[in-house]
């Protein structure tokens, strides 16, 4: 009986997720009990319940149905994203909230997984192969369309998630190194263009060398190099035509230390919080940094320093370990799944989780620039928790059906 259960129930994904959600709730309680009598904690607990139901549902939907419906989901989310741009409410300077009666939600949280599903569904068709330029272009467009809508909100963090998650997906789907390089290089040039002309030229030279090293034939190298130049130059032109406040937002993003009241200050305080936690931590509700509210809205993006300060190296290592286990488990599901759709989706989920985790924890410890990416399962936020638990449900689904062709 138990062995049968073990065959179809993904213990590992389930318990990793459960442990992370509980750690998240404890941290949110600690960060907010003083500020609004832990109202955020109560709300998040409710969302965890909703997420649990969503997880159960997604783990039972038959794969074929999921595959067939993924384009429908994708279209719906695309429409909502477009509508949000027009009528959405502005939270912290970007239009990403979708209000429905009293319920608010961030459709971009769901756009990530629906895009991965659509991409996987398209590439798992037997007549589609990345070696055909047309198919490659369609696959890239599936990713590019929501990316641009989200960039327009403007939500840079989520755009980055889309971009980074795309790379392992393409790799897993069998794209050559050249394709991966050809996608990376224009972004490198765009980043260089924002920093200055010298940086732009350096990026172009490095890009040219990379393209040459991984070359397949002269024509594709020339096309990729042309695209790189075009992207870099147009970014420069667009930047020069932006409003001063828009330029300032970008420069603050690129150099947070220049804004002492903003993200730079948060990183300093976040490092103090984590560092002062030491080996055992200061104890639940005893973190002075957390309780003195040095970091504004710590329960969202900087939740990792609550864990780090109050539960120390032991607690933070457990969180890191759980996340690493989750990613490796997703990779294992992708590898053992006989079903191409499930396999690709699992890699997409791996990419989404991985980007969030590495960028968020890296930011809290001063390794990465400050971009507003929540930490999966731990950060406060209903849409994000529900979407993440749905993705775990999908992993459980693929695990149960791993032998299905």
């Amino acid at each position, binding site marked *: 009986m138990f062995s049968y259960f073990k065959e179809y129930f993904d213990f590992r994904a389930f318990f990793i997720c459960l442990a992370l959600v509980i750690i998240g709730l404890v941290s949110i309680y600690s960060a907010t009990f*003083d*500020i609004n009598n832990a109202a955020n904690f109560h709300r998040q607990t409710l969302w965890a319940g909703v997420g649990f139901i969503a997880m159960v549902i997604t783990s039972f939907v038959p794969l074929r149905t999921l595959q067939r419906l993924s384009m429908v989901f994708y279209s719906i989310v695309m429409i909502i994203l477009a509508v949000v741009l027009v009528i959405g409410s502005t939270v912290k300077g970007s239009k990403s909230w979708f209000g429905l009666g009293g319920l608010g939600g961030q459709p971009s949280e769901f756009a990530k997984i629906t895009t991965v599903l659509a991409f996987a569904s398209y590439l798992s068709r037997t007549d589609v*192969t*990345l*070696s055909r*330029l047309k198919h*490659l272009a369609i696959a890239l467009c599936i990713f590019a369309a929501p990316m641009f809508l989200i960039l327009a909100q403007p939500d840079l963090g989520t755009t980055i998630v889309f971009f980074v998650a795309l790379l*392992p997906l393409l*790799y*897993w789907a*069998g*794209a*050559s*190194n*050249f*394709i991966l390089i050809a996608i990376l290089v224009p972004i490198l040039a765009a980043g260089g263009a924002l920093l200055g002309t010298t940086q732009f030229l350096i990026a172009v030279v490095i890009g040219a060398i990379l393209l040459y090293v991984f070359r*397949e*034939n002269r*024509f*594709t190298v020339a096309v990729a190099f042309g695209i790189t130049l075009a992207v870099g130059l147009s970014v420069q032109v667009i930047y020069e035509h932006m409003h001063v406040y828009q330029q300032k937002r970008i420069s603050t993003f690129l150099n947070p230390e220049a804004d*002492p*009241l903003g993200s730079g*200050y948060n990183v300093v*305080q976040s*490092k*103090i*919080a*984590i*560092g*002062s*936690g*030491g*080996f055992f931590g200061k104890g639940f509700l005893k973190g*002075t*940094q957390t309780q*003195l*509210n*040095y970091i504004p809205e710590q329960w969202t993006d900087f939740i990792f320093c609550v864990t*780090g300060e109050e539960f*120390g*190296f032991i607690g*933070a*290592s457990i969180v*890191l370990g759980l*996340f*690493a286990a989750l*990613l*490796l488990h997703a*990779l*294992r599901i*992708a*590898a053992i799944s006989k079903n191409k759709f499930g396999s690709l989706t699992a*890699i997409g989920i*791996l990419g989404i989780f*991985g980007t969030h985790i*590495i960028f968020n*924890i*890296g930011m809290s*410890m001063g*390794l990465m620039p400050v971009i507003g990416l929540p930490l999966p399962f731990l950060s406060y936020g209903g849409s994000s928790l529900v979407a993440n638990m749905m993705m775990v449900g999908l992993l459980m689904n693929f695990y149960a059906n791993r032998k299905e062709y």
Partner: protein
Amino acid sequence: MITVDNIDISTRRRVLTIIILLAFIILFLRLYQLQLLSHTEFGKKSEENSVRVVVKEPVRGYMFDRTGRLVVDDGPAYSITVTPAMFDTNNLAFLSSLLQVDPALIQARINRGRAYSRFSPVRVVRDIDFKTLSKVEENLYLLPGVSYDVESKRLYPFNVRAPHLLGYCKEITDAQLARSGSIYQQGDLVGSSGLEASYETFLRGEKGYEFISVNSKGQLLGPLEGGRRDVPSKEGFDLILSIDFSLQAFAESLMTNYRGALVAIDPNDGGVLAMVSKPDFDPAIFSGVTSSEVWTELNTDPDKPLFNRATMTRYPPGSTFKMLVAAAGLEEGIIDEHSHITCGGSFRLGRKVFKDMHVHGSVNVVDAIHRSCDVFFYQLILKVGLDKLQEYGNRFGFGKPTGIDIGDETSGLIPSTEYYDRVYGKGKWTQGNLVSLGIGQGEIGVSPLQMAQYVAALANGGTLVQPHAVNSIRNKRTNKLDNIDHHEIPVWLTSEVMSMIREGMRRVVEEPGGTGGLARISGVVSAGKTGTAQNPHGADHAWYVGFAPFDQPKIAIAVMLENAGTGGAKAAPIAGMVMEKYLFGELRRKVANHNSQTHIQDTTVRTTEQGIQ
């Protein structure tokens, strides 16, 4: 064309595993570095930390009058603050005895602040005097969590009140706080009436921040990183007013014993020279703490001192309206300079008789204004009709806001056909309803400000100027003066019509038989018109509108006195004196020429002037 690598799944899995493990090893090493290797350093930092962010209040912008004198200043005010987390409630009684404030009030403020953050100080008492401050300061070592803050408060160096014009600041309400985003914080003062409210965005400046290291007991250790992270506050911008404060003080003194309003404006650009609404109150009572008793007293006073009579009252203008009716009649070709009627002292329409004050005999339009003949206008309005009356009323700015920059104002009322249909029902009103409109009685409502705008248009030869109290703003960043643009709309009267009306107004003041003789200014020709608005609830309201000098007007004025009697006896001398003072810088007329009440007022004038110069 593009090849797909046919490496097998296990290779790809190995590559991705290595990437994942590498990333996590980096994160793990960083964690190890922060929490184990640098633990002592960060632990010390966190204990000392800890950084407190101290908000530096900006200096609120000053106000200068048109002659460049500083009229609204900013001075220090001391507030007592309490940090809820560090305050020992056993000390509450001691603190309240030092401050002489009800302990329940202090407790309530602390509780409110605690709801936001236990660790940010909340102001419990504002603007305490220096003696109380030193008493608290001596005992600070007994009162952990108690501190004080230096803020700014408004000072009014002139002996001028003008509370409705200048406005005042009040502590921000929770609703405003929710709307404003991060600009304001709990306990901030925000302009909530008059110029302080209209120009809040310019006056308030930008807050600064100081980062100060504090140890875990809350003792200050000094600036963080030598103050390199500090952000200095930025001063608010200054307002350069069009008001002449000598004139304002003088006008206020003349109005002291009345309920009413006075508005004097520069007819050339619409700049308000003086604006008085009486009874009023001293704006300084709002500059520091305002006790709830003061509020209740002002709010329940039957004379309504908070109410700005200059912009908010809607009274019929009485005979001061006759120039407008004449303008409509002349401009529309209904009458010309030769048209005349014979006034027999009354006008009969159907069975109704409308009375005049005198029998004026044969009068043309100039005579009718000069001697204020009602019968002439009773007949004229019937020919002008309601629609034209409304059109010309709107041309002169009635029935709509003037657009003045001090906040609330009434639109007033100029009746239209639709209005009468709505009030009386279609077909249920007759020409009889119209007749009294001809002499500015009945269903007309105008504010003294609108009247000043109207008489300014007659003074400057036909331009409706937007009244305003601020001429320019001094930008403290660039130290440049930014002029504010105001609209100017022509009223489209031909110069012949304009000169007939102005001639009538000149005769009102300068010629025998006019009702405005008491407004006469020796040495200068002026023009004007008196009005006495019937009031069903009590004594008549007195009006006077006028301007001077006649040829090159520098000042236009409207005076309205509630229940004071006739305009010629009460309002005209006040208007005359204010214009005289503005044109000559002093009062030339002999005080003895006027009745005893004016005499008393003039004594106050002198003391006021000593206060100014």
